[in-house]
Structure formats: C-alpha cells, structure tokens
C-alpha cells in the first residue's frame, strides 16, 4: 500500500488510547509546574472556539485524563501564535506542548482530528515527494483523503483566481524524485526505535 492510500484508509481509532499513555508523560513534564493562573487562556486568540480552555487542558494533562484530552478540540485549535508561551509566568513551553499533542493525534490517527491530521499529512506527503510543497498536489491529496466531494467547491473560487494569476501551477499528484525520501525514512526509523 502506498502512503497516499495509507492517508486515506487509515482507520481512525476511536477508543484505542492505550499507546498514548507513554507519549503523554513527556508532555506532562512540560506543564507540570503549571500554577493554573489562566494567563494562557486569556492570551489565546482561539480560546473562544475551544471546548476546554488552555488552562483546563493543562489541568487534564497533569492528571493524565487522556479520554478528556483526546476528545477535546483544544490543542487542534492552536494556531501556533506563541502568545501563551511568551506570557506564561512559569516560562512553560506551552506552544510546544500543544504541538506534542498534535503529534500524538497524527501518529495514532485519532478520529476527532481527522481534518487537520489529513491536511498536515497531505502537505508533508507532497514535500516528501518533491522536496518542496506543490500546492495543487497537496490540496488534491487532501481532498482525496477527506473523501468529501463537496469540499473542493469551497476552495474553487480562490483556486481559480490563483491559477489564473499563475501563482499555483496545475500539476496532478505525481511520484516525484523523492528528494527528501531518505530524510523522512530515517526520521521514522529513529522515532519508532
């Protein structure tokens, strides 16, 4: 099975959170000095859309409440603006902790984060093939992975504009030269060892 088929067909795991426990430990360490002051929540531009506030998320990470953490949209709503990291009075790497949670969701293909996980993986697949991202290919891979025939229409007006300005070239997904293949493979090998 090639990797694209893999992005599409990987079964999202609804409940299998067992392997997550180990990977949660380093994140717990990142935020264990949290004093629950809520400065992160007050600084987060996306807090208005979150089910758990960032402060509540850290509380659950410290208590290793994995069911709560991985059914919450909170970490996937982090747009990596670094305001919380900048302002945290304890100097905790909160943005990095958000990213570490995203990495678990991507690795375990957790169902609630299907959209962002497939988006990021489609992007990385295009980079892996060609060394640089090809925007048309990346979005095509994303649409194929999402299997929603209506989704491309939402992007069509902007896509047409960008193509007509010559900013996006019309290229179908292709195998590419595998410029970064060796790097990607080595990273996977080290991470799984």
């Amino acid at each position, binding site marked *: 099975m090639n990797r694209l088929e893999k992005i599409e067909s990987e079964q999202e795991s609804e409940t299998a959170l067992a392997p997550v426990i180990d990977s949660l430990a380093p994140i717990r360490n990142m935020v264990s000095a949290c004093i629950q002051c809520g400065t992160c929540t007050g600084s987060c531009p996306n807090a208005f859309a979150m089910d758990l506030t960032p402060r509540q998320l850290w509380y659950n990470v410290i208590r290793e409440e994995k069911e709560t953490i991985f059914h919450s949209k909170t970490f996937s709503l982090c747009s990596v603006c670094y305001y919380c990291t900048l302002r945290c009075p304890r100097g905790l790497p909160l943005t990095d902790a958000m990213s570490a949670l995203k990495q678990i969701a991507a690795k375990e293909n957790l169902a609630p984060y299907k959209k962002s*996980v497939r988006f990021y993986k489609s992007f990385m697949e295009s980079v892996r093939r060609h060394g640089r991202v090809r925007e048309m290919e990346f979005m095509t891979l994303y649409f194929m992975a999402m299997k929603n025939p209506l989704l491309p229409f939402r992007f069509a007006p902007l896509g047409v504009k960008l193509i007509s300005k010559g900013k996006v070239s019309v290229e179908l997904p292709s195998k590419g030269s595998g410029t970064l293949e060796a790097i990607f493979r080595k990273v996977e090998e080290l991470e799984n060892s």
Partner: protein
Amino acid sequence: MRYLYYPGCSLKGTALEYDVSTRALMGELGAELVEIEDWTCCGASAAEATSYLLSLSLPACILARAEKMDDASQILVPCSACYTNLKKVEEKSRSYIELLNKINTVLQEENLHLQGKMKIRHLLDILARDIGPAKIFANLKSPLTGLNIAPYYGCQCLRPYSVFDDPEEPRSMEPVIEAVGAKIHPWDMGGRCCGASHMTTKPDVALELVATILKAAKGADAIVTVCPMCQMNLEAYQKKISGMSGEDLSMTILYLPQFLGLALGLSEQDLRMDLNLSITKAFRDKLNRTQISADIHR
C-alpha cells in the same frame, strides 16, 4: 551587504510577488542576495504537527546546505513561518549537543552535516536594522505622503524569538514606513494572529480573527505585511468577511517590500502588484494623486 537567501515554497507559488519585490527592493538598496542552492521545504506548520524530529530535520537540511556555500554567514528569510522554523534549529543546535547529534544522524542520509554557525534573519529585521530608515530615505524617489498605513507583523517574526522587536507591541516597521513619507494607522492589531492554516481546516475560527483585524484597519489606506500566510488570509477572504460582518471591509493588502519599492521608484510591474488579490480602487486613486503631486514638486 551580502546575504544568503531562503525564499521558501510560498514565495515560489502563492506569494510570488513577495519574492520578486524582495529581490527588487534589496537590489535597489544595494544588498546582494545569494539563493541557497537546492533548498528544500522547511516543514511549514505541518511538520511540527506530525513529528518533532522531522520539524527540526527539515530546516537543518537547509542550514547544512547553506553552510556548504560558506560565503556569507547570515540567511535572509522573508516568510515568518520559515523564519521561525530555521531560527528554532539555529537556537537548538547551539544549546543541545545531543539533539544536534541526532539531527546529524538524520542528515547523514543526504551526506549533509550541520555545524550550527548560520545566523537566521527576518527580512523585516534586515530592513529595520541593517539597512535602516536613513538609507531608505536617501533612496526615496516618490514619497508616499498622505498615505495612512497599518503595519501588520503577525506572529512568527515576533514570537517565540523576539530578536528585533517587542513581541507584544511591535514598532519596527514604523520608522521604515515613515521614511517614505507615509503615516502610521494607530491600532493594536500588529502582532495579532491571522489564524494561519485554520483558514483551510477551521475557517469559522480564522474568519473571525481576520474580521477583527480588518475592522480595526478601517481608516487606513492599506495594511502592510511581512508573511505570505498573513497576506493570503488578509487579502483572499474580504468579500466573505464583509458579507458576514454586514459592512464593507475591503482593504488593500501589500507586502512591505512592495510598498517601500513604490517609494523607491520601482514600477508596479517590477513589484508584481498585478498578483495581489486585494488592491482597492480608492488606494489606486490616492496612490496616483500622491505620485502626480510628487512629480510636480520634483
């Protein structure tokens, strides 16, 4: 002045005009840019969301290739996301030897080796501090007097690495904008988040963030940006956001080197202003009047 140059993927595609105008402006200001050979993607925000080691290895490949070229020790980066990713590896490779070794184990696959001697600089940093307002003023050909400009910095040129500006209340763009005769639109949105890639996966959230920024820019003639992601989010969805908000929020959005280039006598073609997605008629009219009156006074 000589810098290695990392354009990054966006500047070869959706942000082509940022690449063209950066090169044109720097040429006009006498700075030489040497593009890094065979550069690859920095991982954008996607690598970090999938693998920590990959998010460091991809920028490290670029830095290792730059070190091979060895004729300049500073890399100019116009894209804020690329800047943060490369900067992260610059910082980590200095402080964490074990991590640097691990990265080099990965890089060995491509016969690359990272020493960690490159310094990463954002375009804005170089314009504000190396070149500076005095030099820009000295090259001024067509003052943009009467234009009211809202400087938009976004997140990642300011945070987490606050190298050249205040991460909460950025001001570094103001002297260079004032050097070409324009005024600063007073607002506190300069360092706010545009929502980044949420615009694709969580549009409701990102549209909300951009709406707040566009509303605060009312009264300005243009917003000026230093990041392709910010630029796209601010310029591409104005009609939709205006509809949502029940008010006309159309606004001219320019890259900083495009705006400065105009004042230094570069043409709209030189700066590829035909590629921008939002330049309003009101802005064009005002720009024409400004340029005509500058010609009269010359």
